[in-house]
């Protein structure tokens, strides 16, 4: 009974601490006379401003009498085009428009810059993850290999990458390697993130392999399997299952680390936030929103991994 009461008491303490934190933030906001305005945020998620309809070539405009159809006849050419799905025309009949001139707005919802940024973050993380896994597996196998060249090279790779900050690596990849090899910002981002995460995955793979009892390799080899077969069918399946929680942690780190590529010309979630703030000067709402979006991403990932772990833990 007393146990039950003291548990209740500690939940009370927990609620009190949370309340204190909220009050503290509110107090801080009040102190700086910040004028909260959450109304602006949704439009950065889903944009209602519609799509701009641009002229595909130099042309004369004609609009039908009911105002529903806009036709183009190419200036000095044969091409023509007509549009019916638009909300508001910006050109008038008889106008001569040039390529990429604004003709009209098409109404409708489209993803806002935050969602576009989120998609870029997801795409960047997913592609980097694939390459990081391959790189980490190769380097991890190199770490436990007998061959001195493979062992030394993978060990140097891991030490080099883990010993330097990711931001510095991103700058080197983007400004040096990216310039020499003419990489796009996205490719440079993937290279930097994959190489960085690969080093950590290599260590996870190595510790996983070393956690499998020696007898497993001996038994496999005694049956006539070569080293690669023993690794593939016996050692790695066990090692990867054991390291799944650490691998999941590394994937979550990768998503968070991808925010650093916002220093390049790449509109990921973080960069999208900076762009919004530079136009509306509302850093508080935007950063809180972005933090929540990252949290949703990493939270659902760790949920998925927990489910996977449960499914694999049948024996």
């Amino acid at each position, binding site marked *: 009974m007393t146990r039950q009461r003291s548990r209740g008491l500690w939940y009370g303490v927990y609620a009190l601490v949370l309340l204190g934190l909220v009050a503290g933030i509110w107090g801080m906001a009040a102190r700086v006379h910040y004028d909260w305005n959450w109304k602006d945020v949704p439009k950065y998620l889903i944009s209602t401003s519609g799509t701009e309809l641009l002229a595909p070539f130099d042309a004369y405009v004609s609009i039908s009498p009911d105002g529903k159809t806009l036709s183009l006849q190419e200036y000095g050419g044969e091409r023509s085009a007509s549009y019916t799905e638009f909300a508001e025309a910006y050109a008038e009949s008889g106008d001569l428009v040039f390529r990429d001139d604004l003709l009209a707005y098409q109404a409708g919802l489209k993803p806002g810059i935050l969602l576009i940024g989120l998609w870029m973050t997801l795409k960047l993380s997913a592609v980097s993850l694939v390459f990081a896994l391959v790189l980490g597996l190769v380097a991890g196998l190199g770490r436990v290999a007998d061959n001195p060249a493979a062992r030394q090279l993978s060990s140097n790779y891991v030490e080099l990458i883990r010993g330097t900050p990711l931001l510095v690596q991103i700058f080197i990849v983007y400004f040096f390697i990216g310039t020499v090899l003419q990489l796009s910002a996205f490719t440079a981002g993937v290279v930097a993130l994959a190489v960085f995460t690969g080093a950590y995955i290599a260590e996870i793979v190595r510790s996983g392999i070393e956690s499998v009892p020696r007898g497993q390799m001996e*038994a496999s080899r*005694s*049956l006539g399997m070569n080293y690669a077969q023993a690794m593939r069918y*016996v050692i790695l399946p*066990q090692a990867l299952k054991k390291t799944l929680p650490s691998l999941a942690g590394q994937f979550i780190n990768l998503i968070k680390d991808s925010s650093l590529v916002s220093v390049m010309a790449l509109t990921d979630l973080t960069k999208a936030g900076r762009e919004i703030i530079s136009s509306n000067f509302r850093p508080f709402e935007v950063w809180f929103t972005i933090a929540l979006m990252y949290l949703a991403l990493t939270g659902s990932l760790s949920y998925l991994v927990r489910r996977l772990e449960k499914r694999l833990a049948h*024996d």
Partner: protein
Amino acid sequence: MTEAALIRATGVEKCYPNGTQALNGVDLSVARGEVVCIIGPSGSGKSTLLRTLNAMETITAGEVVVDGILVHARGTDLNRMRTHVGMVFQQFNLFPHMTALENVALAPMRVLRRPPAEARARAEELLVKVGLADKAQVHPGQLSGGQQQRVAIARALAMQPAIMLFDEPTSALDPEMVGEVLEVMKDLARDGMTMCVVTHEMGFARAVANRVIFMDAGQIQHQAAPAAFFDAPANDRLKAFLGQVLK
């Protein structure tokens, strides 16, 4: 003897990098169909000797010929050689992520490139042979030690080896499970399998072995047929050892 010898080790020495001399000039010859039990105190080199026979350990001098193959020569295809030599370990070393059936069928499928259906059918036969037909779909974690060791024997037999090496196969078992594993090994011996068994089971050695070898300090101290070996120990060291284990 030399003509029919399936295993012939001559002057085998094994010195670890830290200077420990595990084997110190061992000569051993095992004929086809012979069952040899190796006994001796721990650290006497009996497991090491067994493991040099399929090159799980390297040697520093001497030579080992198994089924006509020079085991420790530079150009030997070790993986092919090992398909002729089955090995059973003290700790079973079953693959925990696979069912009993998959454990047995894995090497025939991957090494001998048998079609999966054929490998599985053969694995089922072998599980029947070791008395575990009903455990085919069970993972090793759910099997008793004795059952695991029998699966391990079936796994080694799946490669249709000419020789079976047993490295203290019953030492990690609870006493009530020793019998079932020894029974399977007796069946094997009756079928004419050539076997080298490192063991502490003197009863098994006396009943099944054609020859018993006593090792100490990295050397074969004495070998004889079981009756003579146990009833009239040839030297004081053996007498003292037998006195220890048989009391």
